[in-house]
């Protein structure tokens, strides 16, 4: 965790300096919180720590973690994407709509596209929603909060309009029509691990690679840290901005397809308030809402903290109302600790670097003398 929270490219503090326990605790807080949660709930419930329960909880976490990876990209840029919950619903509905068969009255036939087409179209719709968000924010200068709040309503409305407010049930497909297999992601396990969890791992790995090893990742951190400086360094800040909202939309759509697959049904109200859980995961993972700070590892930890906490509360039978109180408190504490960390880092760096500054040769003469 230590290297995860230092500045990009910095040496981990515990190699150069002494062991600073409070600082380690602060930097590893999400990880520590996850361990504490796991220990407490396994003491309270014998089933909590079983392999099966851990896998089930991980499958729940996967959906939020996928959303949170996209949300992290947006937050790194200093933006926010409130529309992801609605996009989850819309993507599921679009996939469901295609799986139900598309009647074409003019030809008197009903088209049953194969599963992969349904999934691709659903993800494409997510990308389109993201593109709209990104265009509103970067071309028209709408504040991200407002732009994505607008699309939150529009997209939810679109999902409800497509189904007429109903739920598409039974998306298993029909062998005769050759469109079976939609439930594969939701029900299948590979090497005993739910497919959704594997999808999360793949997305997290790609996200991590993009953020740490590609120019795009560097552009994103730079434009989130100081957009003007990034622009003057030749970074296409507007393209970056559009791209991250598209990424966020795609992540949301993938999450939506996974949920529809798990339920083999598509409900237009699915994903309500998921955006808030995703934001919470990003924040608990140590990202700054002002942009420029955060990483995938933190976000995954954040998603697991929230997921394991809420499932644990369900398992030991805490009322839903108390669950909300606990979750809210965790989020507020996380933000307070983030501030503490950024501040302590600032002070520490100034101290450590100011001390060994080498003597300035040019300054050894009296200040008003020629220095050439």
């Amino acid at each position, binding site marked *: 965790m230590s290297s995860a929270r230092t500045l990009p490219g*910095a040496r981990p503090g515990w190699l150069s300096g002494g062991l600073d326990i409070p600082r380690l605790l602060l930097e590893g807080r999400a990880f520590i919180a996850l361990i504490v949660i796991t220990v407490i709930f396994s003491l309270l419930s014998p089933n909590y720590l079983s392999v099966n329960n851990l896998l089930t909880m991980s499958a729940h976490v996967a959906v939020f973690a996928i959303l949170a990876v996209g949300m992290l990209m947006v937050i790194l840029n200093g933006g926010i994407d409130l529309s992801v919950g609605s996009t989850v619903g819309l993507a599921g509905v679009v996939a469901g709509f295609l799986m139900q068969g598309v009647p074409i009255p003019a030809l008197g036939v009903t088209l049953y596209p194969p599963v992969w087409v349904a999934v691709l179209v659903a993800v494409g719709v997510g990308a389109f929603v993201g593109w709209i968000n990104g265009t509103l924010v970067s071309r028209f200068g709408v504040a991200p909060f407002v732009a994505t709040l607008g699309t939150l309503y529009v997209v939810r409305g679109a999902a409800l309009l497509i189904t007429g407010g109903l739920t598409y049930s039974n998306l298993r497909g029909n062998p005769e029509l050759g469109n079976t297999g939609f439930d594969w992601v939701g029900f299948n396990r590979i090497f005993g691990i739910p497919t959704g969890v594997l999808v999360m791992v793949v997305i997290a790995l790609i996200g991590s690679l993009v953020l740490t*090893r590609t120019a795009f990742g560097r552009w994103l951190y730079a434009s989130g840290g*100081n957009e003007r*400086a990034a622009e*003057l360094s030749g970074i296409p800040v507007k393209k970056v901005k559009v791209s991250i909202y598209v990424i966020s939309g795609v992540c949301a759509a993938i999450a939506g397809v996974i949920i529809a697959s798990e339920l083999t049904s598509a409900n237009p109200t699915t994903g309500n308030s998921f955006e808030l859980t995703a934001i919470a995961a990003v924040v608990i993972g140590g990202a700054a809402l002002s942009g*420029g700070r955060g990483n995938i590892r933190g976000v995954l930890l954040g998603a697991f903290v929230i997921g394991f906490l809420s499932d644990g509360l369900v398992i030991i039978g805490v009322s839903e109302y108390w669950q909300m109180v606990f979750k809210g408190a965790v989020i507020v504490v996380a933000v307070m600790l983030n501030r503490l960390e950024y501040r302590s880092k*600032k002070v520490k760096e100034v101290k450590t670097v100011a001390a*060994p500054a080498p003597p300035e040769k040019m300054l050894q003469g009296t200040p*008003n003398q020629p220095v*050439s």
Partner: protein
Amino acid sequence: MNAGVILRAVNVEKRYGGTHALKGVDFEVAEGKVTALFGENGAGKSTLMKILSGIEAPTSGHLELRGKPVRFANTVEARDQGISIIHQELSLCPNLSVRDNIYMGREITGPAGGVDYAAERKNVQELMARLEEPIDPDTLVADLRLGQQQIVEIARALSVNARILIMDEPTSALSASEVEVLFKVMRDLTATGVSIVYISHHLEEAIEISDFATVLRDGTIVAHEETHNVDLDWIVGNMVGRNFDLGQPPASIAFSDVALEINEIQVADPSNPGRLSVDGVSLTVHSGEIVCIYGLMGAGRTEMLEAAAGRVPLLRGQVKVQGKDLNGLSIAERIQQGLSLVPEDRQRDGLVQTMSVGRNLSLASLGSFIKRGLLSGTAEDTLVSQGIRDVRVKTAGPGAAIGSLSGGNQQKVVIAKMLATNPKVILLDEPSRGIDVGAKAEVFGLLSELAEKGLAVLYSTSEVGECLSIAHRVIVMSKGRISAEFDAATTTKEQIMAASGESATASNMNGH
């Protein structure tokens, strides 16, 4: 100075991190008089004024008000003691009306606690009448010209009935007639016993209005005199120092081709719609040549450089690098063509504070260490350590936080970042802003090295001392145009200052 000192700074020192802005200053404000404070950018004038007005606390030393030591925790405490400041940068809320701005934070309230808008409005009208500026109190500040906004700022300072009024560049946006009104108001004020500290880059203007002249250089008071005993040469000489030398331009180089050609460019003024900030500027810089652009605040230097770099659009004209027209190219494409800009405000435009020294340094040249679509860590390390070595950045390492460096070293990181793009032309907007003398000499030494390697170097400055010695040529800008061009080897500081309009306003007023 004998009797009648109302406010005194005693051995005041101020440090910002590694920067030593004030080095033990003893400064006196004469009661009922105008004390002009002269000094170049970075000499510490603004810092001293911030300390006098309670915005900043001194690192050591103290203030004495009417002979008694005082401490101001903030501007409100200073204001309660009768000290008021008119800022160089306007501190108005553009979304509020003139009336609301003037009474911001000290609204006149009625018995029920509501704001007495009528009383505020009446007072504002009186203030405006006194300043001979017919601005309606209900106008939004955003709708005013810059000069009118300055008037509002002055009106606000007057409205608190200050006994000591600090004016930091109050005339920079005012027209000649507005300046005359301001001077009249200042004389009225001093007649009623108000003491004024006056800072201006318009030297002759300041000589005309002031009773005492104090010169600040590199954080120390170098001269203090009654104004009627001094002249322009005395002030300039004390401001820039007789023996300050930034080095020599590389002489052995024969200039080769024209690297940068700017042709009749026009740029709109974003803060004054309909006006131009750059109006028909043409210039050329050869490979291996160092050209300095001198001008006052608002002369259009920054706008011209930013337009060349592609940050703001041109209304007309062309920018060419080695004969290739850059019109329509993005900032990134211009960097590829070999044109790099080191911006004026490195905190706002140059550095990403959330990134390390190394990441900042490599930001503009990521393309040079991408292998198979991925950034190569080793190639980046090589580039970063070479950059740090080349410009001699003093840092704990590439991983250090950028905020941990001194101003001069931060500036070197920005320069190294742009050098890593292998430019043919490098534009530097006020490269010495906010850095100390030693770092200044290093930065200019660097420019000389770059020119020797064949780069075309174009830098801007508002300190006349930085025009000579290092540059081959000096171009003076005033009000968006080029007003003069000098061969740096044969010109004088006075000639340059005269061409910048620094003395123009006052020469109109010499009849008074």
